[in-house]
């Protein structure tokens, strides 16, 4: 029999001897430290803006830990919001055919829209909700991060719900589980590994936005929320390179802590929800998770929460009224489908009319063409940069991926670099450009890909590591070398991974254009012609019709780029280059 003894983590806590271990001491410190930090970080969100402005951002490195904490809490709040949004939006999209027709295309577009462009709208909106209160600005910042994280998490959840194993669905219906039970016992657990992975990816994208959203100027108002982003922007205004260096260090530390304390344990834990019943590679490990399992104190703290969650999930809740059959049939009839289609089309036309009307109030047709041209310039930048980054990182990634020892050392570093908000390092580049008097139209461009190129690297490494050994051996035994080896053996092998990486990188670069095409250092401002700088300028000027136009055009470009280039490459990779 293939039975293996259960891992120690599966032994119920009640059978273990209870003694106080060194782990407990550590656990105690961590739990209460976090609690204290949390209270401190949140109580300042409730003061009026005027209070906050009395305390300017301090460039003293010792204030960095507090700023870092504030930034981190914003990230956490955004993740929680994204998760709730994901569960609701994803579930509705997956369960209602008609909602799906509308919700999924919207999600697809939201994914491609440059989030940073929204910032001005949302800041205004949330400040209107909480006039004169810091809370409104905090909400706006959290919302900005949320918009950078939620979409791919929702997509992942939706796709999991769409690919639920049929037999498990049948078990659930044949035992007549209620919708509530089904959601917590089947749907959420099944989507857990994908969701955790996507949350992690979202998080690494989110650092970029948190930095960008903590110091924002909309028209006449400039808002700085205490946090690392505000620290950096103050350092830029003060031309203080040392402070920038300190913030880089602080950011490195935060990302590292986040990764170790939150995501590694989550990934290791989510492994139990993996659906494949046979084990693939070595399961992910996390010292924190081991610690949590070993420390009784953690068990004591977590047990009631776990019990509550399980009991809630088991409750046979169902809708209080059941829909009468004739109503249900009429509702799902084809006539209702047509009515629905008409409603959607009308809503769609109305929105387009709204946008055109709003933009046309301020902007004339020649400017629209000009914006299209600027968009083309940015498109060229993105395309050239992705191409160059691929030329550099694909060979390096392959080299690394084929050497398991190097790969295990480098892979976390590449993922780490992808999470690092490149906008923190922009000042160094700007100083260099100013110093050498270089052309900003060319030399600002690399900043767009500074933070996003790592997606290409770590995906290619993953692809090369997964390349089957027997195929490498076959290639070697037939003396396939050089150019032939690259084009016939390894490039087709890593292509599916490369496409994923390049797609993420290009999406990130479009977003980065908004902060990278205009960069300043003290009073010096460098500007590259492009759609990014157009949107950035319009934001600074508080010119909403132009912001709308800029975002709309950029979204169009991103969608067109995705549809004409990445999607065909994806389907080609899925069709021809799968290795299974």
């Amino acid at each position, binding site marked *: *029999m*293939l*039975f*293996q003894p*259960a891992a120690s983590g*599966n*032994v*119920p806590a009640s059978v273990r001897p209870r003694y106080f271990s060194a782990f407990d001491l550590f656990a105690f410190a961590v739990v209460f430290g976090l609690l204290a930090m949390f209270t401190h970080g949140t109580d300042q969100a409730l003061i009026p803006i005027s209070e906050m402005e009395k305390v300017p951002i301090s460039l003293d490195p010792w204030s960095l830990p507090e700023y870092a904490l504030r930034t981190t809490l914003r990230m956490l709040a955004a993740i929680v919001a994204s998760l709730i949004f994901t569960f609701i939006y994803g579930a509705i999209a997956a369960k209602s055919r008609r909602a799906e027709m509308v919700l999924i295309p919207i999600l697809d577009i939201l994914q491609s829209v440059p989030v940073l462009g929204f910032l001005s709208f949302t800041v205004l909106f949330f400040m209107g909700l909480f006039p004169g209160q810091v809370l409104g600005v905090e909400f706006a910042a959290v919302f900005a991060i949320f918009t950078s994280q939620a979409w791919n998490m929702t997509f992942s959840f939706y796709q999991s719900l769409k690919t639920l*194993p049929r*037999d*498990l669905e*049948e*078990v659930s*219906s*044949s*035992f*007549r*589980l*209620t919708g509530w*039970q089904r959601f917590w*016992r*089947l749907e959420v*657990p099944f989507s*857990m590994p994908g969701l955790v992975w996507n949350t992690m990816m979202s998080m690494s994208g989110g650092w970029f936005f948190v930095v960008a959203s903590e110091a924002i100027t909309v028209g006449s108002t400039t808002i700085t929320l205490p946090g690392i982003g505000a620290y950096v922007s103050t350092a830029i205004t003060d031309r203080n390179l040392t402070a920038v260096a300190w913030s880089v260090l602080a950011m490195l530390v935060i990302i590292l802590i986040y990764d170790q304390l939150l995501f590694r344990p989550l990934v290791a834990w989510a492994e*139990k*929800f*993996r*659906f494949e*019943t046979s*084990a693939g590679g070595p399961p992910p490990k996390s010292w924190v998770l081991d610690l949590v399992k070993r420390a009784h104190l953690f068990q004591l703290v977590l047990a009631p929460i776990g019990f509550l969650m399980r009991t809630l999930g*088991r409750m*046979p809740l169902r809708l209080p009224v059941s829909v009468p059959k004739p109503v249900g049939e009429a509702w799902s009839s084809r006539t209702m489908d047509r009515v629905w289609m008409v409603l959607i089309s009308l809503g769609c036309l109305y929105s387009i009319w709204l946008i055109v009307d709003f933009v046309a109030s301020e902007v004339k047709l020649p400017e629209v063409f000009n914006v299209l041209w600027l968009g083309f310039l940015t498109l060229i930048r993105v395309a050239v940069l992705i191409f160059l980054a691929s030329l550099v990182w694909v060979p390096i990634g392959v080299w690394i991926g084929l050497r398991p020892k190097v790969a295990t050392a480098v892979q976390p570093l590449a993922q780490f670099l992808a999470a690092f908000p490149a906008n923190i390092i922009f000042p160094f580049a700007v100083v260099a450009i100013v110093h050498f008097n270089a052309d900003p139209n060319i030399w600002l461009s690399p900043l767009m890909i500074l933070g996003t190129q790592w997606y290409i690297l770590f995906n290619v490494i993953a692809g090369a590591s997964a390349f089957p050994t027997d195929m490498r051996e076959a290639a070697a035994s037939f003396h396939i070398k050089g150019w032939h080896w690259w084009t016939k053996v390894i490039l087709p092998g890593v292509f599916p991974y490369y496409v994923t990486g390049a797609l993420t990188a290009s999406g990130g670069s479009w977003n980065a254009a908004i902060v990278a095409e205009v960069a300043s250092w003290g009073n010096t401002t460098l500007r590259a012609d492009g759609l990014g700088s157009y949107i950035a300028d319009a934001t600074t000027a508080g010119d909403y019709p132009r912001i709308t136009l800029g975002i709309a055009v950029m979204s169009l470009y991103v969608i067109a780029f995705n549809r004409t280039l990445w999607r065909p490459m994806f389907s080609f990779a899925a069709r*021809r280059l799968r290795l299974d």
Partner: protein
Amino acid sequence: MLDTTTPMLQVNHVVQSYRKGDNNRILVLDDVSLSMKEGEIVGLLGRSGSGKSTLLRLISGLNAPFAGDVSWYGKKVQGPEPGISMVFQTFALFPWLTVRQNVEIGLEALGIEAGERRKRAEQAIDLIGLGGFESAYPKELSGGMRQRVGFARALVVHPRLMLMDEPFSALDVLTAETLRTDIIDLWMEGQLPIKSILIVTHNIEEAVLMCDRVLIFTSNPGRVGFEMPINLPHPRDRQAPEFRDLVEEIYARMTNRQGPGAPLHIDALHHAEVTLTTHLTPISTNILAGLLEELADPPYNGKADLPELADSLHLPADELFPVAEALATLRFADLVGGDILITDAGRQFVNAEVEPRKKLFAKQLLSQVPLAAHIRKVLDERPSHKAPWSRFADELEDHMSEDFAEESLRAVVNWGRYGEVFTYDEQTRQFSLDDQD
């Protein structure tokens, strides 16, 4: 054992089909009726594509029939019935739940409180021989143990009828045999909290071993072709002559081209006509050649008993049938009353070298498989000597399901490539003539 005549389950003229295009429907089940009473084990025996799993899902209330109805103790089934539970071929265990949690899940839906739930789960787990494994996760268990969890989960809700969808087919031979014997023993001892069992299977011996009654299904669309009572006393002995006779008869009926219900002609050769829209199963030419060679060589010398051949090749019946049938379609062999006989063409094929084999194969393909001949003709007639896949797929889909059309075309692509009758480019999804390249 109980021997009442209470009609428990009644399936009345059930038709199941699905929509294809606007006014076209593909039949999966055609006018199927059956009834079950308490105290019996009934087997649904058929090949893949005969709709028996579909029927099981109609009975359990997971799906609703297109026409006809299913009634459960006289009441029409409108959704999953509490008195019916199901064991799945794929086990269908929740990988994130432990054995106990998996077993309890059906009780949770009934809203049974925790203490009672645990007690009943414990009983079911012990009954099925899983005691000690309560806190293990499915990943840690072997296939046989996993399916035991599947059984415990189905039993714990105390159903009246237990449906089994090929419960042993994902297990290796030894494990399957052990589990099967355990289930039969528990059933005979009256320890199972159920009244009847309905089992879907493609394994002929399994059906004869377990069932009181076997319904043989025809394929495409599924119909009840023949009903056979199995009146052997338990425990049944696989080697007993009566047992072998029943297995032999079922083999003959399942390969009978006139349908399982038709009289079994032992002497006369009957060839059901292969038409343009006959469903073909894609069978690799290597397997066809392998089976022909096995058949031509001693001990068979050209004539073999199908159950015997299946045994010696270690092939389950439902894998042997399509191969044997493909050979019959290509007229390399004949199927007669549960036997397979090599034809002259088959002998020539076995004795030939690589190139002549291909020529012979091409000849049989073009003369015996109208779909292949049709594709070749279209390619010959077109000036470009090219034709897209969709041209033929659309034509077939007027008469069969999309999956069957796909399978038939795959079969012809594979055979046509081997016989060098035409080529097919997967990238452009185009058929073309070989010399055109």
